[in-house]
């Protein structure tokens, strides 16, 4: 039966090729625009460490100016980052199973071997736990050890791209690299890795690529590594040396911990509050106690990673789809009204209202699927366009399989919703009226 209906549907679609094409085009355009907007939105609001994002927490301490909040428009918030001195104290605590302080800096670099010209490297200075906290995959070697952290050992982990550039992509573990004035030993090379958004550092471009290389945070002082990321200061204090800067109230360090149970979270929160109270006695932390532990999942919301523009676009895209559907309803009505004599004949020959209805739903479903496929094609083109327009969206404007499924579903649902009323109208035509005039 279904086969017969499909054949009938094809016949009917071919009878009015322009009308059919218009309907497919309308649905396709609606789906294409919606999918483009939705894909960017979906990837932007994605959770790159979904399987553990409720156990990984961003740490905030409110060490800011007593006279004004960190962000005027969001007075409930503490600074996004920590001061060096506070981060150093937090690193001493072993309540959290894993913890990592971090910031980015830039160095000139060159491998030991001749023939490769020096270049810049964006460098993340962080603790050994960084790699396990964020499940960073290794192609060769591994993260350095906590012992290397403590010993301030000059070790380095390379991104896959940097290893390609410096060592031609081979296993470079054990090789040496000049960073600034010191040689660093390669202990690990990452595999493909690009969390979107870059949850661990939303301060310096949430959709940027990860850094080129990683070295121990404990080397900051020796290297006098200046942050090339965000630095925010509020206090008027004389800063005449790197040591002064480290001891200042400037905030510039991101700090993450892994806490495995609610008890641990409580314990860690108490630890932060106690530390802040202790600092209050020493004349710092003059603002009301506001130390925050935010899970990675919530952090993306708190930091408002998804831009309003994208929400507006999704809203408008769905209004666009609505127009396309209204269009399709109109066209279907027109089409089915024209089929009234044929429907009447079928009904007079014994087809029930139910089977006629079903027969036309098959036809509409066909239009829906064709529209959905066209929509997918248009979405692919649309996303390519978006990538062309916005450089930062290189990683955001990619069709993902989940969304392809969603697209087909929306297309089917939309065309069925658009089709039910016209079909019902067509099937409720009294057969006698049309047969008489034939």
């Amino acid at each position: 039966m279904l086969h017969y209906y499909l054949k009938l549907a094809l016949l009917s679609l071919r009878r009015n090729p322009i009308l059919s094409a218009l309907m497919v085009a309308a649905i396709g355009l609606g789906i294409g625009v919606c999918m483009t907007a939705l894909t960017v939105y979906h990837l932007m609001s994605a959770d790159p460490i979904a399987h553990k994002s409720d156990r990984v927490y961003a740490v905030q301490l409110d060490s800011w100016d007593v006279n004004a909040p960190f962000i005027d428009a969001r007075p409930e918030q503490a600074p996004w980052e920590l001061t060096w001195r506070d981060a150093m104290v937090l690193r001493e605590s072993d309540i959290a199973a894993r913890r990592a302080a971090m910031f980015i800096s830039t160095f000139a670099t060159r491998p030991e071997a001749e023939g490769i010209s020096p270049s810049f490297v964006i460098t993340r200075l962080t603790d050994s736990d960084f790699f396990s906290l964020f499940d960073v995959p290794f192609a060769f070697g591994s993260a350095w050890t906590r012992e290397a952290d403590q010993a301030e050992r000059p070790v380095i982990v390379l991104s896959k791209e940097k290893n390609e550039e410096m060592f031609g992509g081979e296993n470079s573990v054990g090789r040496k690299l000049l960073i600034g004035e010191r040689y660093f030993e390669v202990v690990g090379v990452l595999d493909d890795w690009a969390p979107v958004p870059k949850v661990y550092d939303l301060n310096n471009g949430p959709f940027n690529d990860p850094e080129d290389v990683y070295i121990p945070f404990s080397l900051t002082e020796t290297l006098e590594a200046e942050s090339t990321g965000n630095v925010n200061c509020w206090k008027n204090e004389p800063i005449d040396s790197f040591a002064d800067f480290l001891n200042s109230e400037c905030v510039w360090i991101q700090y993450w911990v892994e806490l495995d149970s609610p008890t641990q979270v409580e314990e860690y929160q108490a630890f932060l509050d106690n530390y802040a109270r202790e600092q209050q006695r020493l004349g710092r932390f003059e603002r009301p106690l506001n130390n925050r532990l935010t899970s990675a999942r919530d952090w993306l919301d708190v930091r408002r990673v998804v831009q309003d523009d994208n929400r507006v676009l999704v809203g408008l895209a769905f209004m666009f789809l609505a127009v396309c559907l209204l269009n399709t309803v109109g066209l279907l009505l027109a089409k089915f009204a024209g089929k009234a004599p044929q429907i009447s004949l079928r009904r007079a020959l014994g087809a029930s209202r139910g089977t006629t209805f079903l027969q036309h739903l098959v036809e509409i479903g066909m239009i829906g699927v064709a529209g959905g496929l066209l929509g997918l094609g248009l979405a692919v083109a649309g996303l390519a366009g978006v990538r062309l327009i916005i450089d930062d969206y290189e990683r955001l404007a990619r069709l993902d399989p989940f969304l392809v499924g969603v697209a087909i579903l929306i297309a089917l649902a939309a065309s069925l919703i658009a089709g039910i009323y016209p079909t019902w109208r067509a099937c409720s035509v009294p057969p006698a009226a049309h047969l008489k005039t034939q």
Partner: protein
Amino acid sequence: MEIRPILSAMLRNKTGAVLIALQIAVTLAVVTNAAHIIKQRLDLIGRPTGLDVAHIFQVQSVDFAEHVSFRERVRADLELLRGLPGVRAATAIGSMPLSGGGSATEHYVEAGQDESRVAANYFTIDEQGLETLGVKLVAGRDFRPEDVDFYESTSGKLPASIIVTDVLAKRLFPNGNALGATVYDGLGQPQAIIGIVEHMHGSWVDAERVDEVVLRPQIYDGNFVRYAVRTEPGRRDEVMAVVEQKLTALDPQRVVRGVRSLEEIASDSYGADRAMAILLTTVIALLIAVTALGIVGLASFSVKSRTKQIGTRRAIGASRPDIIRYFMVENWLITTGGVALGSALAVALNLWLVRTFELPKLEIVYIPLGIAALWLLGLLAVLGPARRAASIAPAIATRTV
């Protein structure tokens, strides 16, 4: 005009008309709001920057370590840059305007008085800084070579003189006596305002006070330096092509890179706004196309299903223009119903956008403009089917009855 019979004919078959009207209503709501957002973004991108954006580029140099001859290096680099054919001026500069990266600090009109402080974006440049950026001095004097000095990058020490933009001068000193006045940093170090420039955009293009800028005659010591270079008209790309190699040749034991035009830098900073404008324009274009096709489709169908009726009218005396007019008026009535509803929808959509996303309120002029555009669109779309209707021969009426 025969509006009444048209209306009553429409009422007998209202679904099609209602669908078109609804489509037009949503189209009007989306188009007006999208056009409003586009206009706003384009205005933002098109603001005058006060800089000679088209002829400036940057280049950076990094050494492996800090070294004593760094100052010599900067002097030699600048001498080389200024001597390149096609170069008009060059300066060491802390960060590029319009780049999204930069520094800001508090400036106090009264030393130590918190109420008198004004935060402003500052740039460190040398005596060719103003010339390189292309900003216009309107009062006081430019920096001289003796004003410019090197400072430790970790040092908080400040140069004694600064130049500020006119807007900032007026904000700091509303009475207009900024020139020659002194402002202070948080630690009370004085800085005399020796010059005022007409207009200049700073680092952050999305900042409300993007044009409140301080220029300092200062170069930071260290292992990193950035240069801004301004070329003669039409020679930027040619100089950009050779600059990396020329600087590297001066000393290969360092990294020279980051050669980028200010045009490219600014374009990146406005990337999101430009993208929004392009995407919304696409949505508007597609929406108008879909709506127009919808009108054509339904009108064609209505012509087809009324063939006999039209033939009859023609047979009893209606002229071709009468038939065309009939469909035009019918369409105009539908569009008018649509835009009436659409105006309300446009305002509602805007209210939602204003409330949820803090977008600016829709300027009311967009609604009449949108209405006019949709009237025109409707008439154009229906013209084809209407003419086909007019070409129906009166004989049809008699043939198939």
